[in-house]
């Protein structure tokens, strides 16, 4: 049987990148700390294309001038960043990850905090996009409120760089695409129907605070303290190594000693950070801080 190790192939040989596109990339990197490696340039080109269509522009050269010079440069850069950071997302997207949270991680956290009088669980959805992730986490913790999380206060911090995504998240109205994995029982319990959309209800909104945050903003990152779990899914993929390392170091400092960092389904910290340690759950991985005894003991 052939080894599948080399099966994972990239997009293959590509034409040399358009110098204007490279220039746009550098502008974005300088302004927002989000770097598109060569393999992501096509994605960037698509995003620029959407903006160009809206502006009625035909060439990348014209567009790169727009975001680099003149009074309209800054607002256009924000529009482009909005376009770049919009991600496809849905409720309960990564089931094994959520199962690991509910059945293994939360019990471990409860155990780790057993001696602390304040029963508080703090989860950060870093790069929450249009809100599906924090609302999913809220539903999950609400489901546990009469069980393992009885008497626990829950805080869910939801941040994103993209203002438009945040506005969508706060509005909390979703179409059929992002609610496709939602169990029928949850629709009635956590949503109200508004025409062809589902609107999150007051209970689902409770204990979530939305705010705009750039993960490259070092001064604000240091204030995200005392976290039990951080979710940062498919956000760091746009970052260059140095920015990623900085963000991850912040995450490391922001997490409590027993804390967990969850990344997107195929994201890895390999070569980025040596302080975090990879752990496996059934069908999911996460990162934990340094050496510590694993609750439940060691067994193979």
């Amino acid at each position, binding site marked *: *049987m052939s080894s599948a*190790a080399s*099966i*994972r192939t990239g997009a293959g040989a590509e034409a040399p990148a358009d110098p204007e596109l490279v220039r746009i990339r550098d502008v974005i990197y300088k302004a927002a700390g989000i770097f598109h490696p060569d393999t992501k340039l096509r994605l960037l080109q698509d995003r620029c294309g959407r903006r160009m269509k809206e502006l009625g522009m035909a060439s990348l050269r014209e567009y790169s001038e727009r975001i680099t010079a003149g009074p309209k440069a800054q607002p256009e850069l924000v529009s482009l960043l909005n376009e770049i950071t919009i991600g496809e997302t849905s409720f309960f997207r990564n089931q094994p990850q959520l199962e690991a949270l509910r059945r293994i991680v939360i019990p471990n956290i409860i155990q780790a905090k057993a001696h602390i009088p304040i029963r508080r669980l703090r989860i950060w959805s870093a790069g929450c996009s249009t809100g599906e992730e924090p609302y999913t986490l809220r539903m999950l913790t609400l489901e546990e409120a009469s069980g393992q999380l009885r008497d626990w206060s829950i805080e869910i911090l939801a941040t994103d760089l993209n203002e438009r995504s945040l506005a969508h998240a706060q509005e909390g109205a979703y179409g059929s695409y992002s609610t496709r994995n939602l169990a029928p029982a949850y629709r009635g319990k956590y949503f109200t129907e508004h025409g062809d959309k589902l609107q999150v209800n007051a209970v689902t909104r409770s204990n979530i605070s939305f705010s705009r945050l750039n993960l490259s903003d070092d001064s604000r990152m240091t204030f995200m303290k005392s976290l039990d779990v951080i979710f940062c899914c498919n956000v760091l993929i746009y970052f260059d190594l140095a920015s990623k390392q900085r963000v991850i170091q912040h995450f490391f400092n922001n997490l409590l000693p027993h804390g967990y960092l969850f990344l997107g389904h195929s994201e890895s910290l390999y070569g980025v950070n040596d302080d975090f340690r*990879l*752990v*496996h759950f*059934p*069908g999911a991985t996460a990162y934990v801080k340094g050496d510590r005894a694993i609750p439940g003991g060691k067994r*193979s």
Partner: protein
Amino acid sequence: MTPATATKQVLLQRLEGLRQIPTIPAVLAPLLRYLQQPVEQIDVQKVTDLISQDKSLAAQCLQMANSPLFGRAQPVQSLRGAVMSLGFHHVSDIAMSCGVLNMLPSDKTSLDPVVFWEHSLGCALVCRHLARKINFSDPGKAYLAGLLHDLGIIVNLWVLPKEFRAAWEIGKAEGIPLHEAELRVLGFSHSESGRLLAERWELAPELIEVVSHHHFPEKASEHQGLVALVQLADLLCRMSGLNYGYIELRQVSLMEESGFAVLEKHSTALKDFDWARLTFELDSYMDEVHSLVRAIYRT
């Protein structure tokens, strides 16, 4: 005597008394040994000759070569053609799988033989991949060790089906490792029953150690490195969906396993190994393993 030790006595008696102890087809051992050589030294005709000694294996190879899995435009008519079409790795997978799957009782009320064999084959692949990546001595041996590490499960399915089923059900209900559930119900795990069969089959000493100690590699004596490699691959498979038909509710840190410390002594490359990537790559292994085992089982 506790119920568990009583069960162990029963196992020993039943195993001793069994005339029809599970046997591997006679051709399998020489065939697998021959296929373990470097590819350049393998002679297609010799492989064909060996396989043709076992009619059912020959038929299975032909059927597999003509199955949609290997998608050939022209049907393969001869055994030699089948061997060439399948490739040597697949021939040994098929040979081993036929041997083991034919041996297993087809009772699916507990551990499904197909699921069991998918785990074994997946573990074999991960062992070989890992052995190559960390420059461990013999990837072929690592592959075979992965394939056979759970031999004891065959024994338990065969000799103590009712008791094994009770153990499997406890494992599933509580989400605990199978060997822990076995220990609770039977008083021993598949490591011990596997050792009995491995010794009876006169497997190579390193394979006997793998079968006996793959949950506690530090207890192995001569071949700790190989046993440790199998422990890590086994764990990774069980956490990645190539499990025993149920989910183990636990957090695994491979770097904290006893096998990791053992294996580090044998390979300096282990320190920098990208486990996350291997975990993601396992997805593609899984598809391959599912298709292969299901195709063999159907034929």
